[in-house]
């Protein structure tokens, strides 16, 4: 019995990470990934700077971009050592942060209600259905008219995209819960509030986090568009101004920065999900090890 108990003890998080890392390193995956990156960078370098292929010749090349990015004294004014670069990043991050938190705080409860209460869904969902086909970016001018200042419209657009993704996925999450869990809770004497707390919320959590992942993605998507059209700072704005003022390497620096920041923010959401859904981790581990 003791042996059984020991076997069931959850594997320490660190050991798990080491185990996964080891398995990954032993597989051919790292080599293939390196080959993939090498192909991409090699293609970029060769086509632009070595062979100067027809349309590629005018593009910023690999070495010029990286030289610019890491230069203490960049030709076009943006590099790792220039404070304005970090201001752009921070402004974008702040907008994403506000919009994402707001969208989560409003979207999750709305989605839970949409999935849980039939009446709420029947009244509110039609409005969703009408508003959803309108692309978020079609809201740009209206947002500028509706909301004061230049910051609020950008945040509103980013929020809107995130909100729909979060609310709809949360609703799907509630719908995805096997009805027998809800019935079982009733059988065991749970009130509907208790069922909501003990069954609906944890049951919908995997979908909620899928929704949040999508939500971060679309938030960056709309943020960049909104910043390109209006806005004073931010990475989208940086891309657009660099284009108009013919600072081409800066465009690529801003794009790559966007990729990195975007990747990091969705990784953070993923980590939060793993942390909150500890009950799924052992399941995933046993699946992975067999």
């Amino acid at each position: 019995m003791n042996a059984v108990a020991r076997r069931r003890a959850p594997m320490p998080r660190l050991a798990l990470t080491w185990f996964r890392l080891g398995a990954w390193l032993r597989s051919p995956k790292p080599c293939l990934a390196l080959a993939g990156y090498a192909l991409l960078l090699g293609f970029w370098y060769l086509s632009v700077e070595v062979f100067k292929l027809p349309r590629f010749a005018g593009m910023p090349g690999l070495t010029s971009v990286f030289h610019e990015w890491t230069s203490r004294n960049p030709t076009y004014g943006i590099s790792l050592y220039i404070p304005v670069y970090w201001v752009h990043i921070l402004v974008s991050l702040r907008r994403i942060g506000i919009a994402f938190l707001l969208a989560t705080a409003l979207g999750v409860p709305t989605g839970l209600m949409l999935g849980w209460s039939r009446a709420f869904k029947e009244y509110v969902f039609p409005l969703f259905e009408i508003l959803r086909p309108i692309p978020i970016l079609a809201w740009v001018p209206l947002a500028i008219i509706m909301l004061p200042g230049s910051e609020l419209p950008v945040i509103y657009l980013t929020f809107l995209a995130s909100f729909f993704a979060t609310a709809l996925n949360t609703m799907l999450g509630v719908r995805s819960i096997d009805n027998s869990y809800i019935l079982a809770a009733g059988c065991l004497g749970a009130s509907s509030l208790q069922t909501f707390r003990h069954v609906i919320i944890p049951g919908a959590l995997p979908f909620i986090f899928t929704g949040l992942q999508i939500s971060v993605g679309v938030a960056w998507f709309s943020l960049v568009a909104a910043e390109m059209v209006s806005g004073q700072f931010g990475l989208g704005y940086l891309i657009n101004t660099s284009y108009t003022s013919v600072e081409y390497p800066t465009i690529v620096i801003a794009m790559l920065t966007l990729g990195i920041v975007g990747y990091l923010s969705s990784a953070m959401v993923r980590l939060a999900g793993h942390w909150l859904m500890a009950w799924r981790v052992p399941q995933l581990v046993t699946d992975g090890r067999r």
Partner: protein
Amino acid sequence: MTQQAAIITPDSGRLLRFRTAALPRLLFNRSSRRAIVSILAAIALWQLGATSREWLGWPVPVLGHVPAPDAVLVAWYHVLGDAGYWQSWYQSFLRVAMGFAAATAIGVPFGLTLAMSPTCRGIVLPVFELLRPIPPLAWVPASILFWPTQELSIDFVIFLGAFYTIVLNVLGGAETIDIRLVQAARSMGASRINIFRRIILPGVLPSIGAGMEVAIGITWEVVVAAEMISGGGSGGASGAGGGLGFFIWNSYVGGSYPDIVVGMISIGIAGYGSSALVRLLQTRLTPWLEAR
């Protein structure tokens, strides 16, 4: 008619009864009543908010600056006779169709290749993970630099938006294929090509459909933004204006605010219509999914 009725089994009789009952049910059941009530309430609120100067002594927030529904209807009526408006529809549709078709035509075979070959997957997926977080619109200036015409550059950005989604959906679909089906086919002596044609392809069709449905939505998102940025924004206005996104932006710049809402609704309709089209295609391609 009677001949047919004789062939029809009790089952299709059920279907028939359902059909005749469908319309009144649709109009009078509780959920449609509630939908109508809530939509009317929303429009009333909108009208009230847009036309009244103040609520309880406070200037109306947000809604106070929005053009009222009746003004929008009037503007729409005027614009219906305008050739430029329909030209915008046509141009946006053309771009969506181009980008979407290219993304499907390239993305599906590409995804299938990745699904069939672990080596390709190992090489390409990390690169994908690297590039995907860059929002498609961040590519707009680079795309304009690269492609000879602005039209092509817009198409490219649209293509990019749809491409990732389709490829990743095809891959995800291939992962869900029951390995036993492949083993069964192999034990019956099926070749690699046969396995691909008879198992992998039908197995991923549902995910291709799902991916296409998401992709067409993204496509509309991108087309609107691309039209605004390249046509109206500071990205330069060289020739490639037009399209519904440009229509909206132009209305904003020209100060005809009701037209903005007209444009938004038009894009909503266009997007909804094209999604419906893709869904229709999807049910045609995967009839077995309805039997679940």
